[in-house]
């Protein structure tokens, strides 16, 4: 069965305190791994796509990496505006390009 597990469920950081979020997955026929950001009361917003082990993508204070079994979202020197829920999803090589989502990590950054 395809599974995507994110950890931790919630994370509290002080402004400037770097950390990492984890997304582990078990899926056959991985086509790509996606990271989304979701603010309260809004829909998920696309951040990154990774599709091969060893690949890395960066955007401002965020950096996503991918191995054969997991992905990490590294947050360097976070600011309060980075507070959000971060969702990981995997896309399989199959009809419909469907995504299987993890439950998300709720990040709170305090100033």
């Amino acid at each position, binding site marked *: 069965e395809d599974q*995507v597990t994110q950890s931790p469920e919630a994370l509290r950081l002080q402004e400037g305190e770097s950390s990492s979020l984890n997304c582990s997955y078990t899926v056959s026929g991985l*086509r790509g791994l*996606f990271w989304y950001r979701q603010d309260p*009361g809004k*829909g998920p917003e*696309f951040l990154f*796509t990774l599709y091969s082990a060893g690949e890395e993508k960066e955007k401002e204070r965020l950096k996503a990496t991918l191995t054969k079994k997991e992905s990490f979202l590294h947050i360097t020197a976070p600011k309060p505006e980075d507070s959000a829920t971060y*969702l990981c999803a995997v896309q399989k090589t199959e009809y419909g390009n*469907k995504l299987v*989502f993890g439950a998300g990590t709720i990040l709170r950054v305090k100033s």
Partner: protein
Amino acid sequence: NAGVTQTPKFRVLKTGQSMTLLCAQDMNHEYMYWYRQDPGMGLRLIHYSVGEGTTAKGEVPDGYNVSRLKKQNFLLGLESAAPSQTSVYFCASSSYLGSVIAKNIQYFGAGTRLSVL
């Protein structure tokens, strides 16, 4: 360019009532999706469509029906609402260009918060 628009934003139903959620996209995307999001469970796929006139079941299709009569619209119907269908519903759309993974990004609407009493 509005992207993906969902209506209504909020709705309260009584058990047994019916309703339709509307999703409209202006990006000329082929693929459209309906998800529900519940606390601690992430987004789960209800139904999806790979083109006008086509629909397919996702992970949790029971109690829902969908229609895609026009490429830009995807409707989600609840024929007889149940309290278990209280959730936040999201619509998404994506283009498809074969193996070009970057173009398979799903873009989401702002969601519909539904309560069934």
